[in-house]
């Protein structure tokens, strides 16, 4: 899911730059949420963290109605202004998402191309019990479809479980679950990754050094993600754990199953976010009713959000906008992957409530950020990593998938700005990615290879 944080800020914010992403008229939107995929609560236990996110953010629900505590004229003025500001920063937010997604993909592709461990077949996870080592094509296809069904069912069960936990306010359980998952990622998977990288480059490292390195990395990571930390460090850690998770998927998902699962999860994402009875939609709505952030989420945020404590004169006037913003804020916290304890958003946003912010003008552009669920990162990286691993040693396929995913992300943000309601972040990108993967691998590669062998340029 992609969420877009938009402070309903002061009216007099100096607008020096107008960039907008869309060409059509934009309906007024006070808040702006993207669908986040609710991560399937999935794998708390094992090594699988799956994220299924449905992006969502029923902002029109929160924006218009809930904040309507009275000043309708002011409300519409605020809405217009928020709309302008949303559009104004549209292009910037796209870039704020391009950069981390690109970084994550670069880390995954670099690892896949250099460390052979992640392309070796070494068993499968229990979530994909059917083997693909079958003699016939039909049997293999059937097994991969069955694997997908098992995986998606696990995801659905976990998500529903998560929603129930949230509905019945078992916050401690959820927190514990998330902390356990991130512990595993930050320590165990990092240890394995470091070991394999050292093996690849034939570098010796003694155990005390290893212990110190892993301990520091993991401890700082836990603090940054679950508590407070410098924003960029936190972003770096989130990118790294997404990459680690994606690498695990790339290693342990069998080939055909991986592609079918990618397709199925986009469809699931679409349905879970847009259908009225979808678990993710229910999760978001519950969170909005309670006016609180969903729960520590695996969400990448590109900027610090201040839950503004307007202890100043303008507070009364800011009332409706504040409400709008808060409600929208809550709606935006969509958990992408409950198994990962990513409470970074809520934690780092624990602002200073009584901070004497005199006016909203002080909030500058950097504080409008965008949030994207980590599950989206993971599945984008899985697609590109699989392309790098299995596409006959070809770089063109990887690059084509990369461009496809970026364009999908761009289009999703554009649609978001147009529709102003929660939208899933996976379907468009994954669809483009899959189309480009298969067509580049089968059609473009022979063409380009033939051209290159004769040194022809088109």
């Amino acid at each position, binding site marked *: 899911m992609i969420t877009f944080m938009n402070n309903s800020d002061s009216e007099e914010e100096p607008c020096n730059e*107008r960039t*907008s992403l869309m060409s059509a008229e934009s309906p007024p939107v006070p808040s702006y949420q993207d669908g986040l995929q609710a991560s399937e609560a999935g794998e708390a236990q094992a090594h699988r963290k799956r994220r299924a996110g449905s992006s969502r953010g029923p902002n029109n629900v929160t924006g218009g109605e809930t904040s309507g505590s009275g000043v309708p004229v002011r409300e519409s003025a605020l809405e217009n202004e928020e709309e302008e500001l949303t559009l104004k920063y549209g292009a910037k937010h796209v870039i704020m998402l391009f950069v981390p997604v690109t970084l994550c993909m670069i880390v995954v592709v670099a690892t896949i191309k250099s460390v052979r461990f992640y392309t070796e077949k070494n068993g499968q996870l229990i979530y994909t019990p059917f083997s693909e080592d079958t003699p016939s094509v039909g049997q293999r296809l059937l097994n991969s479809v069955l694997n997908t069904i098992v995986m998606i069912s696990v995801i659905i069960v976990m998500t529903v479980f998560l929603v129930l936990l949230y509905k019945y306010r078992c916050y401690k359980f959820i927190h514990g679950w998330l902390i356990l998952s991130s512990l595993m990622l930050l320590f165990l998977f990092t240890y394995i990754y470091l070991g394999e990288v050292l093996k690849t480059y034939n570098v010796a490292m003694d155990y005390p050094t290893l212990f110190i390195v892993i301990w520091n990395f993991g401890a700082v990571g836990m603090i940054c993600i679950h508590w407070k930390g410098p924003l960029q460090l936190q972003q770096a850690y989130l990118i790294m754990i997404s990459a680690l998770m994606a690498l695990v998927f790339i290693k342990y998902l069998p080939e055909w199953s991986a592609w079918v699962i990618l397709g199925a999860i986009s469809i699931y994402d679409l349905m879970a976010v847009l259908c009225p009875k979808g678990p993710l939609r229910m999760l978001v709505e519950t969170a909005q009713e309670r006016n609180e952030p969903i729960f520590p989420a695996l969400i990448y945020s590109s900027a610090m959000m201040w839950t503004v404590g307007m202890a100043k004169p303008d507070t009364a006037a800011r009332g409706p906008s504040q409400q709008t913003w808060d409600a929208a804020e809550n709606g935006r916290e969509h958990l992408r992957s409950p198994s990962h304890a990513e409470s970074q958003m809520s934690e780092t946003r624990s602002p200073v409530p009584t901070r004497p912010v005199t006016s909203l003008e002080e909030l500058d552009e950097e504080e409008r950020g965008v949030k994207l669920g980590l599950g989206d990162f993971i599945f984008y990286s899985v697609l590109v990593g699989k392309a790098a691993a299995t596409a006959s040693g070809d*770089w063109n396929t990887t690059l084509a998938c990369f*461009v496809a995913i970026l364009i999908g992300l761009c289009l999703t943000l554009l649609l978001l700005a147009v529709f102003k309601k929660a939208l899933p972040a996976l379907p468009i990108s994954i669809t483009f990615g899959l189309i*480009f993967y298969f067509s580049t691998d089968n059609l473009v590669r022979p063409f380009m290879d033939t051209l290159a062998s004769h*040194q022809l340029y088109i």
Partner: protein
Amino acid sequence: MGAAVFWGCAAIAFGPAAALVLLTVAAEPLRVIVLVAGAFFWLLSLLAASLLWFVSVQLSGREDAALLLLGAAAAVLLQELSRFACFKMLKKADEGLATLSEDGQSPISLRQMAYVSGLSFGIISGVFSITNILADSAGPGTVGIHGDSPYYFITSAFLTMALVLLHTFWGIIFFDACERRRAGGLGLVVGSHLLTSGLTFLNPWYEATVGPILILTLCTGLWAFGTAGGSFRNVLKCLSCKQQPEGQVMLCSALQVPPEE
């Protein structure tokens, strides 16, 4: 072979493109988006061309030079078609951005979009042409061991550099010609693209390919410079770093409110 060849050829092929991107595109979000969108359009055209070639090879049952020639020509024409589609989309986006902005002017002009989309076509085309070759150059091997030319890598790098720059120039010229509805410009762009691609068929006779293509790049560059509004006088003025005339100061003082009321 090895790292030296890899880095050298990569720098030759993508040096100008990297400099252009870092200096002109990277700082502006809208331009980065146009860059990625342009790459997408080029990829679509390549997909269509590959499909065409693949189908024709399957139908004819054999793979020969004539089919490759046809495939390359189709690729060129489809690329120009996708450049036109890109133009249409960017024009629409430009109008939309203009209506949305405060002062009725879009934050990015059509000319800038022409340049960025041309650059994006060039980069993605260059990347697709040379990345596999670069990857191979980093590893062990002997170039031309079966009697082919040993200059494969370096000439590939120069040709890629020329192609990147050519696409940038073609983008500028093409958009300008479409904007002013001049078929001559369009025809010349398509013609020179076909000429460039056709010249590469003369490889490995590098005297006839690398030299002429680089000269063609220079000429197209000058033409694009002229199209974009540049001229010899502009260059002189830029190089001479003249001071601003004093008149502007006078203008400001004229805006002051008169003291008596």
